[in-house]
């Protein structure tokens, strides 16, 4: 099998001929939210923002759905509790029953601490790994890093992104739209 770098890039949607999106820069969070709202009103649906801290109101302005993390975590919490109870019952009352200090082989009351800790432990792992999974991280490369202000999105700049997958996206028009809502340094970035 011949691995042609060009073909691989093509399949991954990378390369100078693949437009990933248009990005514009703002210097204040309020401007970002206001501009985002206007862009969304123009009919764009695939929007994103990049900011150094969570900007209040941006999710609503550009239509980011609420995180589903909580619903995922609750199942792992239940699994943690179940693991604790089954573990204590199985090792104490089934697999190797030993009477110690006249205490019952299994009882709910003395199982509470370990069950509780395992519930917390499982939930924490679910939150931690779930958050990265939902965010698609870790990721070695992202097209948005090509924007000249991307490195300032972790400092003091607020970027508004229109992704190329948006049905309304057009490289020239989208740039104009971003400029019309006050964005600076508007550029089309390639994959």
């Amino acid at each position: 099998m011949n691995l042609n770098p060009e073909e691989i890039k093509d399949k991954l949607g990378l390369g100078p001929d693949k437009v990933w999106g248009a990005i514009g820069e703002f210097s204040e969070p309020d401007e970002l939210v206001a501009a985002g709202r206007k862009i969304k009103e123009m009919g764009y649906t695939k929007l994103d923002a990049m900011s150094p801290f969570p900007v209040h109101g941006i999710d609503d302005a550009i239509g980011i759905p609420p995180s589903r993390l909580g619903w995922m975590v609750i199942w792992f919490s239940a699994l943690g509790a179940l693991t604790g109870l089954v573990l204590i019952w199985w090792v104490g009352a089934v697999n190797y029953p030993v009477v110690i200090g006249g205490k019952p082989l299994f009882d709910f009351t003395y199982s509470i601490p370990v069950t509780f800790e395992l519930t917390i432990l499982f939930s924490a792992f679910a939150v931690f790994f779930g958050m990265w999974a939902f965010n698609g991280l870790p990721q070695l490369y992202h097209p948005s890093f090509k924007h000249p202000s991307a490195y300032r999105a972790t400092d003091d700049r607020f970027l508004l992104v229109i992704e190329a997958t948006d049905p309304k996206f057009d490289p020239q028009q989208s740039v104009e739209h971003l400029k019309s809502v006050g964005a600076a340094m508007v550029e089309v970035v390639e994959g």
Partner: protein
Amino acid sequence: MSVVVEQNPALMEVNPPLVRANSHHELTEQISAITEGDVVKTPMKYWITLGITSSIAGLLLVMLTFLVWNGIGVWGNNRPVGWAWDITNFVFWIGIGHAGTLISAVLFLFRQKWRTSINRSAEAMTIFAVMCAGIFPLFHTGRPWRAYWLFPIPNTDLNIWQNFRSPLIWDVFAVNTYFTVSALFWFTGLVPDLATLRDRATTKVRQWIFGALSLGWRGSARHWSNYEKAYLILAAISTPLVLSVHSIVSFDFATSVIPGWHTTIFPPYFVAGAIFSGFACVLTLLVIARWTLNLDNLITIKHLENMNKIILVTGSIVGYAYATEFFIAWYSGNPYERFTFINRAFGPYAWAYWTMVSCNVISPQFFWVKKFRRSIPFMFILSITTNIGMWFERFVIIVTSLHRDFLPGSWGYFKPTWVDIGTFVGTIGLFLTLFLLFARFLPMIAISEVKGVLANEKHAFKGEEVLAK
């Protein structure tokens, strides 16, 4: 350019801003600069301090090697005092850790914005303190290389399961969960700041290190949405966790039948004491960090004053708990219980008891006075006496209860050996070494969170300005 908003001086007086900076960029610069300077150019006093603390940490290694070589008989523990400095130090260090979680989780749920300047270093402190704590029970087992016996792992050399009826195994689960969750929480909070450091990196090495550690974080609104939810859930589960950990530590004592230990007040009393000592330790570290790293604009006198208020509250709860214990000892009518408490205050360990009372109950009361709450030298000294007091609290609980057994024939008096002392001093060295390395190489203030507070305050002041006009 960011807009600099003129702040109303009258308003500043009533409600001074928590963060003083002209722009987000200024904050990035100030906090990142601490971590970024050329390693070679770090001030000599830093290396000297690090040299001293790491030598003390080296002492810990020597002590532990000596202990493993000879067996735990080199510690002063012996009948009737089977638990002594080791468990005192364990409870002491675990307690110190609790303030970090309280600041990062509980204050977050209560929307206390002032926590953002101190939560990162407090969380780091938690992790390092729990590491120090873990050393003591681990080596008290005598055979630390068999530590995996503590976990329910099917194995062929033990052939028996752990006893889940024992509070000691609860403790294993509590402390390990606590360490893991604290580390995950800390790392989650660090990632956006690591991305900041990555984007500012000027050398290939820094780019690689922070590029890998920041996992490709780009501050996308989708990232933040999941991140904020994750942070909220972690805070919500850490809050009961932190309460449970010291409650379970107190079960080690409370579920026994030793007079002085067998009391139901222990869980809340231990938790309050833990927060009390932990806040004192955060205060000690932050007063030094604020002074040496010029962080006055981020860790303001208001932050310090708030911490002092918490020290006052928890110190008073601890004092109240001491009084309750005494009352119940008398009211129970149990002669052993009565004897234990009278012996604590007037017996051979009276010196330890009164050190504890004066450090924990009397001295925090100075914080009723605003002038003391805002005096940095005063709070620094008080934070140290508080930690001395809280160490003695655990010593008093453990040693005074054990040294007088039910049988007068087995009464004794515990004295620490040089290995006891060396091991404890060594953990202090380890703790300070880790903290110094953290303060030098990682952002010790949560950059993204402080920026959020700054943005909010600009809003608030802008609003007031508009109203004034």
